[in-house]
């Protein structure tokens, strides 16, 4: 009886769900059923309709047609409150947290509970049990993306749900934390919970999930047993065509040093920020250097200092082409060939309420001559926007679309494309594929490689180790505001990088000897 899982009565079943938005059919008569004790993967590229489907299940959207059955009975999930009452909880990809409130207060608000010591203790219990360390009294605005996600996960687990929806929960966790989370999820499933797991990480899905439903273009195209499929096979189902396997980056020939940081110190911007201490790094032409690290170890600060959003205290702490730029502003640095892609897409890399054309002008006007006689040239900006849209296959309604209307992956392709097509000498990118589907991630990685092959220096700050191992030539890690030594990526293992992320040094561990070390 236990071994006939397909016969397990469904806990929740969605039948013939359709949902149309103006101009697109997001869900076209989709069936999916979740059973107690099973982890069900929902796979699909951005825009495949995954979010719409789970939002319907969680009561955030109403379906145009189709029905939902809870333990065999039809239900009308008209709001998230109804969903929660039934026992459905959801960890969102984009967080809904109040910045000025504490972790405790945010969790209390989401649960309609009081922010008392009772809840505080529960938070501490759950967060330690599942390896999601959280200080209940920290204000949310001081937390990094990774830490914010932990709040969402803990908030859900506190509700003891019967169905748990997880929208790409592992993007910001270290391999160790992922393993711990998987252990937790497996345990929860064994205890009888049904888990709907959305991820683009195919290996993860193969490791964790019992069933998989694959969506493409709003339709259900296949169901599969992920444990019996290869990652390649799943990707092919998801993307509708066979994709070439990622080639490990060949060690390219490197030229002269283009960009360097020397003894860069920067004090924390607020009491919960991280101080950068004695950062040394140099990157040569043609090289991709990766910086690993768990969120909140100084990545934000490093990006801000490099981009010029805050100025270094010493001019020669940062140099580009042998000239000191530490005291130059962001605009001047761009003019000289240093372009950056910050982690946060909306509100930092792009203005959500402005069009793509205007967002092109935002950072490209220095290098692309988008001004004529001092005035904004919308014609040239539009032309450049169109070029980006075509070269990077950005799905949108043309350059007049508002940046905020694009899906995460498409906006990211647009932003990365905007910087790359400015032909920078040095490109610094943070988390370029966070929340981006496999196809878009591949396109972004290829573009970064091509840029390096053409002689630019690329610095990649990321929490995705697979990504770093795949495309960087040298790798190091940021831990508590200090940068580790750097090593040839081909000579270190993921576990060794994990040590670097924890602030240890590989050399002392005498793994791989000194051969790979390269300060």
């Amino acid at each position, binding site marked *: 009886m236990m071994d006939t899982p397909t016969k397990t009565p469904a806990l929740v079943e969605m039948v013939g769900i359709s949902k149309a938005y103006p*101009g697109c059919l997001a869900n076209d008569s989709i069936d999916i059923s979740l059973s107690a004790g099973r982890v069900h993967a929902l796979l699909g590229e951005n825009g495949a309709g995954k979010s719409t489907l789970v939002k319907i299940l969680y009561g955030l959207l109403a379906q145009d047609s189709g029905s939902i059955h809870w333990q065999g009975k039809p239900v009308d999930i008209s709001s998230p409150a109804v969903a929660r009452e039934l026992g459905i909880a959801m960890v969102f990809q984009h967080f809904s947290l109040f910045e000025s409130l504490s972790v405790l207060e945010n969790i209390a608000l989401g649960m309609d509970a009081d922010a008392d010591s009772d809840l505080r203790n529960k938070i501490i219990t759950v967060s330690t049990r599942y390896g999601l360390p959280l200080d209940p009294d920290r204000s949310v605005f001081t937390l990094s993306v990774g830490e914010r996600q932990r709040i969402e996960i803990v908030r859900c687990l506190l509700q003891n749900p019967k169905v748990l929806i997880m929208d790409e929960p592992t993007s910001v966790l270290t391999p160790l934390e992922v393993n711990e989370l998987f252990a937790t999820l497996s345990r929860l499933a064994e205890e009888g919970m049904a888990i709907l797991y959305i991820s683009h990480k195919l290996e993860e899905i193969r490791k964790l999930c019992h069933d998989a439903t694959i969506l493409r273009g709003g339709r259900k195209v296949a169901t599969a047993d992920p444990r019996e499929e290869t990652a390649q096979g799943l990707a092919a189902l998801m993307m509708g065509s066979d994709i070439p396997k990622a080639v490990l980056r060949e060690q390219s020939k490197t030229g002269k040093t283009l960009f360097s940081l020397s003894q860069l110190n920067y004090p924390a911007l607020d009491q919960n920020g991280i101080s950068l201490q004695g950062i040394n790094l140099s990157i040569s032409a043609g090289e991709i250097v990766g910086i690993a690290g768990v969120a909140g170890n100084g990545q934000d600060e490093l990006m801000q200092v490099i981009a010029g959003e805050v100025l270094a205290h010493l001019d020669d702490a940062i140099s580009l082409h042998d000239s000191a730029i530490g005291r130059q502003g*962001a605009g*001047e640095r761009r003019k000289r060939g240093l372009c950056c892609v*910050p982690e946060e897409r909306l509100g*930092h890399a792009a*203005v959500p*309420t402005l069009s793509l054309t205007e967002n092109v002008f935002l950072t490209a006007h220095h290098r692309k001559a988008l001004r004529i006689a001092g*005035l*904004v040239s919308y014609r040239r900006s539009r032309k450049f926007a169109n070029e980006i849209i075509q070269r990077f296959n950005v799905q949108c309604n043309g350059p007049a679309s*508002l940046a905020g209307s694009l899906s995460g992956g498409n906006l990211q392709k647009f932003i990365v494309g905007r910087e790359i097509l400015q032909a920078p000498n040095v490109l610094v990118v943070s988390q370029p594929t966070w929340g981006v589907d496999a196809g878009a991630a591949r396109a972004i990685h290829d573009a970064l490689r091509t840029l390096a092959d053409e002689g630019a220096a690329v610095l990649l700050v990321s929490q995705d180790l697979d990504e770093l191992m795949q495309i960087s030539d040298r790798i190091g890690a940021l831990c508590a505001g200090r940068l580790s030594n750097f090593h040839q990526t081909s000579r270190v293992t993921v576990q060794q990088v994990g040590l670097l992320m924890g602030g240890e040094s590989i050399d002392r561990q005498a793994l791989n000897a000194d051969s790979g070390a390269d300060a």
Partner: protein
Amino acid sequence: MIALQRRAHPSRLMGYLAPLIAFVLTLLSGLLLFALLGVPIFEAFHAFFIEPISTVYGLAELGVKAAPLVIIGVALSIGFRAQVWNIGAEGQLILGGIAGAAVALYFYEVDEWFVLPLMILASILGGMLWASVPALLKTRFNVNEILTSLMLTYVAALLLSWLVSGPMRDPDGFNFPESRLFHDAALLPRLLSGTRLHIGALVALGVVVAGWLLLSKTLLGFALRVNGAAPRAGAHAGFSQNRLVWVALLLGGGCAGVAGLFEVAGPIGQLLPNISPGYGFTAIIVAFLGRLHPVGVLFAGLVMALSYLGGESAQITLNLPLAVTGVFQGMLLFFLLATDVLINYRITRKRQS
């Protein structure tokens, strides 16, 4: 059942239509109100909207009232776009009036061409000086500009009151708290003889065009808009927030200062203890009614000016209370806020599933 459905894109058409719809709804509600009060609606409509602008003089008065509202409203809307909340335009207006009047009185009876330009320059600097205090406090000490600019308004009013009853009082004025009447070279040229319409109306049109060019065509205007919509994106692009705060406040101060001078050297012709019926505050409403867009501000300024004139006219011919003006202004604002929803949403008929 009627439901609101989010549009894929904000409707550009509705952006233009919403204020018109709001105006029509205000009109209908206003007439309904009159009907309920037992006032013949045609006469009320005529008194409020037609009579004030049925004569050349009335039209000129509309221009006289709208000019300062538009000049200040445009400058404020540029600042508001950048999330710089200059609430003290009234004070900056007063300082502009004082500075301009000081030049006029210093060159009393000097019949030279340079007197008026010098007055204008002084008024701009006066307004800017007043606005630079909140700018300095904001950029150096992160003091909220809403509070400082507002509080300085009262300082300005008291300063004016002291000046007209002390140093700038008319020596032959029987101790009345007012300055000498300006001589002709210190008065604004009139556009139409027999009316009070002065060149300020033309300047207002120029300010509308300049403001539109600044916001839509220049890097500075772009930076101001980005700073308002997403400050971190502005920092990422390399725009200095402090510089934008200075620009926004000085622009507001300069324009308010000129508007103050235009009152003093235009319809009034001398410095009085009270030189503005609250134009600096009303301009805030005008800026928002005009959707923080210079062209919108032009129309909003005219509508606001008309509501003042209409209120007076309805008071005279129909014996209605002056509060009618406030009711109309309030209704207009509410209807506008309501119809704004149509920019991002469309009305659909929802099917029951």
